[in-house]
């Protein structure tokens, strides 16, 4: 992808932004804890890593997906207590599945603008309250007049997009299934993983058909969980750690809800968001300059689709990189070393734990058994959501 050098864009910030702590709960299909309790657990872990207490936190950003899953409106306000949001500036942001990276982007505004020196970002999701299956809540994403009378399932949009992507680049399902195999295996090293496992390409191709080409093992599961990040100004970072990780670029873009009016083979809005983040981070050749990537992988083909949107692969090239092992944890471009949504789980907004939090841990060399083999300086994480329309991107680096 060609990215122009920064020119004439007004990225005036008051101060740089560092990440100094992160935390997450386990991700499971159903957890006993309430959303507040899960948020509290994630925040507590992030504070422990940063060596802070809630008194140090100046402002709080909360990210959580549709209220329909909880059957409870004003979810942001409901979750405030567990997020450490009482009696301080607090806001909730939401762009569907894109929230997991959009919430930290909002945290970045708080600190980069100079409004706060220490901002806590919390993401929570409890999908299991929608019973017996959260798919019943997902159906309310569809247009009530033009789509819902056709009895759609949300899996349809993915199936339609996956088929178009496979058709345009002549990609085989076998090559896409390798992503599921890789991510579920990577997740074996993640203590919070819901669906980690050693599976084969054949297992994916023979799994139950949902909406072909999508089969059961092409898809991440619904989950409960929470995650938290602490973002600070440089003078605070210096006080608490020798190894902060810097947020060097953020970008986001949304396309219209008229998703049947665009060619689905390429996520243009992700490319736009990436262009913005790369300009800010002074990255001109992402394939060479990005050492580790956490693209959004709710479906196996989505990791490939997003790698291409992020300029980490040419159009149609991501499956080849995967087949050649380039995206493996010991490869040249480790991709979803966390295990991603396919392996660790998909609690919509709380996937921040395997995207922004994981990228921070990788760049801070704290990912333990999941630490990628190569030396890492710069990485990118990305989320995606709504009706195939939102891309949210964050670039981080352990060098300022």
């Amino acid at each position, binding site marked *: 992808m060609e990215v122009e050098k920064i020119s004439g864009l007004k990225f005036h910030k008051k101060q740089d932004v560092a990440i*100094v702590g*992160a*935390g997450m*709960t*386990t991700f*499971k299909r*159903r*957890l*006993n*804890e309430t959303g507040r309790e*899960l948020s509290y657990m994630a925040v507590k*872990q992030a504070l*422990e*890593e*940063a*060596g*802070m207490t809630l008194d140090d936190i100046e402002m709080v950003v909360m990210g959580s997906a549709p209220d329909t899953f909880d*059957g409870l409106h004003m979810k942001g306000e409901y979750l405030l207590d567990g997020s450490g949001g009482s009696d301080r500036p607090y806001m909730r942001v939401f762009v569907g599945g894109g929230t997991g990276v959009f919430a930290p982007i909002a945290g970045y505004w708080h600190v980069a603008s100079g409004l706060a020196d220490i901002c806590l970002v919390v993401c929570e999701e409890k999908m*299991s309250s929608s019973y017996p299956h959260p*798919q*019943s809540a997902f*159906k309310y994403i569809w247009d*009530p*007049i*033009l*789509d819902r*009378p*056709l*009895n*759609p*399932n949300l*899996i*349809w949009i993915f*199936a*339609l*997009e996956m*088929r*178009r992507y496979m*058709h345009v680049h002549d990609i085989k399902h076998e090559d896409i299934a390798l992503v599921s195999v890789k991510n579920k295996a990577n997740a074996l090293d993640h*203590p*919070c993983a819901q669906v980690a496992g050693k599976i084969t390409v054949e297992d994916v191709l023979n799994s139950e*058909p*949902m*909406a*072909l*080409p*999508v089969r059961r093992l092409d898809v991440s599961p619904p989950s409960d969980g929470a995650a938290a990040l602490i973002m600070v100004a440089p003078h605070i970072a210096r006080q*608490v*750690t*020798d190894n902060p990780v810097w947020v060097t670029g953020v970008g986001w873009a949304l396309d219209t809800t*008229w998703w*049947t009016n*665009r*060619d*689905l083979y390429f996520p243009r809005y992700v490319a736009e968001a990436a262009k913005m983040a790369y300009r800010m981070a002074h990255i001109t050749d992402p394939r060479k300059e990005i050492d580790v990537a956490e693209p959004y992988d709710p479906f196996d083909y989505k990791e490939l689709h997003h790698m291409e949107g992020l300029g980490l692969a040419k159009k149609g090239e991501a499956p080849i990189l995967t087949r050649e092992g380039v995206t493996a944890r010991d490869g040249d471009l480790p991709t979803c070393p966390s295990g991603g949504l396919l392996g660790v789980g998909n609690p919509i907004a709380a996937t921040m*734990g395997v995207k922004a*939090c994981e990228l921070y841990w990788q760049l*801070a060399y704290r*990912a*333990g058994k999941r630490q990628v083999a190569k030396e890492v300086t710069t990485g990118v994480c990305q989320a995606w959501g709504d009706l195939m329309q939102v891309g949210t991107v964050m670039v981080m680096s352990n060098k300022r």
Partner: protein
Amino acid sequence: MAVGKKDIECPPYAEGTPLSDEDIKSGKVTYVEDHPDIRYSWTAGQAISRFLNGLKEGKILGVKCNKCGRIMVPPRMFCELCFKPIDDWVELKDTGTVQTFSISYIDPDARPLPEPIIVAVIAIDGASPNMGIMHILDEVKPEDVYIGMKVKAVWKSEEEREGAITDIKYWKPLEG
């Protein structure tokens, strides 16, 4: 402020108490159940009302923006790219091309369907390239559908039509 933890593996521990469906059914955990009955009546708005009334007459209507030149379907009152009112209403053909498709084995609640259905994005003839709508394909075997296939709308009878997207029952392959 204390100094943060160093040389640790993150996340250092995994908190949370997993439950199974069985735990809920057997009453092992305390929970409260509710089935809210919330009703809505959605007005279709200016553009989509006219589109639905067109369907009732057996026509697929689109709109044109003279600035970008796009002929759009579903119709809208303003061009979202040029951000100006649309200029014309255009009657489109009831034929089109399959842009992409899926064979769905599940219903909106993820329950298995008795017979799989074929869903597709169909680019409508007479509109700009890639201008499609989502609809159902039938009178074709799943294995015979392909991207680029020409299809034609199968309408409900005039008496049955009510001004809804389902006035088109489904789309079938266009012979020849």
